[in-house]
């Protein structure tokens, strides 16, 4: 049967919503929901949860590139069929979890995973680096200032040992967003990799009339940098806009509203690094990530500057932070001046806020440390 374009409304079903979750529960989950008592990470990537019924579930966490093929998912299903009664799940950070209901079943599963070479790395638990939450980049989106999957691949290659081990002071959450829209939680990550533009939008006067509502484009700019303008196109005066480049901070919101204002550029675009965000309420309240490296170039295909920057921060953190201390908690304890020094990151005025709530970030005390910054 299938869809009949001649009668598009016939037999149409809608508003079904997602399938009910329960039908996908592995039996041990179904039997023990709400009864779990405690858990233990028995080795990196392997969680054991103990139920008050005495049952145990072992979850084997596997890193995935997220951008995966139909074939890949089928292979994952093969593994789940072989070891997990045909069930599996994905975590909130795009890892795969294979669950088995006894300890004995763990090693055979691990062996199967290992048999695929580096395709199914086990890890991402506890005080390590788990999967990088990321976005579309050049694979799909229209506004990116960098790629997503490629940068993630390059960074994870370098941090691989942190994924498969638990040697850090605390969990480290890395996220990537390819533009300031920040699809994901880049604004609250231990280490955030953020695509940024640095050139103001161009105005495509030849197309603007058809594709933009000028008042919306003008209103879109948080800094009022977009102004109405009259220009000549093919000898005819048309209504368009102009950009006061002095006031532009390259957020791209005008482009979101108006396709005739592209701002992407090979040299202009690149990556900023933000650090010290967190989401959990554990010990300290959620924190925003803070901009510490304003720009690194889009050096394809492996973004060596970005990879090294992330690694350097991670190593400095690993060497210096206390047990349980998240990156942001560490930076606040030692002081940001010391953070820049310990991470060997040159401080630039770009890290100084000059947006709306900026004053709250100025140092209004004479408490400070003497670091190499003071000449």
């Amino acid at each position: 049967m299938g869809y009949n374009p001649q009668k598009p409304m016939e037999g149409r079903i809608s508003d079904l919503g997602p399938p009910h979750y329960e039908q996908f529960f592995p039996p041990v989950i179904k039997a023990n929901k709400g009864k779990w008592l405690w858990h233990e990470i028995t080795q990196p990537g392997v969680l054991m949860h103990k139920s008050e019924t005495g049952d145990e579930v072992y979850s084997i966490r596997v890193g995935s590139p997220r951008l995966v093929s139909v074939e890949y998912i089928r292979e994952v299903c093969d593994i789940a069929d072989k070891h997990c009664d045909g069930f599996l799940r994905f975590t909130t950070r795009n890892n795969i979890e294979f669950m088995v209901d006894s300890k004995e079943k763990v090693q055979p599963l691990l062996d199967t995973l290992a048999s695929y070479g580096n395709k199914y790395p086990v890890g991402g638990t506890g005080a390590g680096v788990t999967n990088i939450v990321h976005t579309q980049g050049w694979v799909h989106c229209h506004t990116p200032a960098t790629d997503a999957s490629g940068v993630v691949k390059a960074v994870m290659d370098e941090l691989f040992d942190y994924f498969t081990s638990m040697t850090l002071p605390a969990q480290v959450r890395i996220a990537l967003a390819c533009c300031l829209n920040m699809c994901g939680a880049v604004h609250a990550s231990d280490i955030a990799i953020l695509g940024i533009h640095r050139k103001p939008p161009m105005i495509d006067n030849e197309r603007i009339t058809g594709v933009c509502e000028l008042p919306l484009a003008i209103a879109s700019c948080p800094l009022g940098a977009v102004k109405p303008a009259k220009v000549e196109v093919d000898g005819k005066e048309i209504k368009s806009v102009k950009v006061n480049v002095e006031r532009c901070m390259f957020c791209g919101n005008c482009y979101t509203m108006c396709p005739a204002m592209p701002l992407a550029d090979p040299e202009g675009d690149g990556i900023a690094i933000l650090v010290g965000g967190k989401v959990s309420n554990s010990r300290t309240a959620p924190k925003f990530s803070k901009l510490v490296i304003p720009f690194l170039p889009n050096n394809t295909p492996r973004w060596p500057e970005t990879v090294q920057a992330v690694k350097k921060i991670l190593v400095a953190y690993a060497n210096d932070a206390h047990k349980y201390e998240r990156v942001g908690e560490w930076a606040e304890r030692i002081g940001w001046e010391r953070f820049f020094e310990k991470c060997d990151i040159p401080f630039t005025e770009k890290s100084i806020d000059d947006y709306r709530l900026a004053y709250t970030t100025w140092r209004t005390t004479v408490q400070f440390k003497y670091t190499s910054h003071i000449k």
Partner: protein
Amino acid sequence: MAKHETPLLDQLETGPWPSFVTDLKRQAETKPECWDILGILELSYKDRITHWKHGGIVGVFGYGGGIVGRYADMPKQFPGVEHFHTIRVAQPASKYYSTANLRQLMALWEKHGSGMTNFHGSTGDIILLGTRTENLEPFFWDLTHDMGQDLGGSGSNLRTPANCIGMSRCEWSCYDTEEACHHLTMTYQDEIHRPAFPYKFKFKFSGCPNDCVAAIARSDISVIGTWRDNIRIDQAAVKEYIAGNYPSNGGAHSGRDWGKFDIEKEVIALCPTNCMWMEGGELKIDDKECTRCMHCINVLPRALRPGADQGASVCVGAKAPILDGAQFSTLILPFIKVTKDNDFEELIEFIEKVWDWWMEVGKNRERVGETMQRVGLPTFLSVMGVEPIPQHIKEPRSNPYVFWKEEEVEGGFERDIREFRARHAA
């Protein structure tokens, strides 16, 4: 066999982390359009700029969301991705799947799409990456008829809600995040599929303050489990921890030698409210001072558990930085019961109150958190009928700029300047 040379992307096939390039290449063997994905991406790697055009409104009939339109700017060179729309398929709560279900979905996508996916999108959907306009309706037909499944959200509507794994596999969940997420998703199918809001709106459900679905950072309504009685303590287990018989933090730190476990240093001293102490070999908590940060429970999972009188805190207004800078959600309801027993009544009532108000006063493309900022928190609380309490704020205002209302001030605002001047010559 490669349709395009990809010398740059090929360099992403080395290294220990699984390679999406290798995966794409393998898929390209049976789905040749994947060559064009590789080709256009390679070109982006060369040009260091995206080759996708701005937007494009496509969809399935009767839905205002669920599909993101996308066209290549080099359709001639890469005809396989000329149209490259993504489809957002609503994921099941907690993202458990049967392989049967996944295989069926993959078969559909092999038939109607590019063969590439994201498991999952950042909001939580299954993202099916790239298909042509003419495939959308047939895919949707098969998805609904053959699988009984549905699209997720995009556009100015309720986005696909998401939740942490919750009670199904976590001992700390203070309400059933899966059921809450599923129930609300089903309740609001219309709001998900037919945009009627000023802008997007997101729900996320975490079972405890660890917030494993990052609700407080990225959802307009963040429902985060908590409790209002005392942390449950198993003193025998405390002793085992002290003796070093149980690994601290569930073994999360076992990769490094952090020395012998020290309850004073690792738990008591790190409690942000300083409400814990040891007494006669027992761990004591002054629960009324506890802010339920979870740290002690995280470190001693076999000894401590959230209290038994459980529910959730509801926070409102998180969003990404554009335009005013990022916002976390703000605590609005410190504690409500969140349970299927009453069909999530309290939560639903609150959500709808927020919506009614925001749909009325929210400007175009203004997230509810921005509307809150614009009108001010006191006004927001008052329109919500929520009594202002100190729990709504980190600290009281430090400026003295209070908006007094006329009815609060004895004698009102109207005065007669002549009468005033009679007593106070200028």
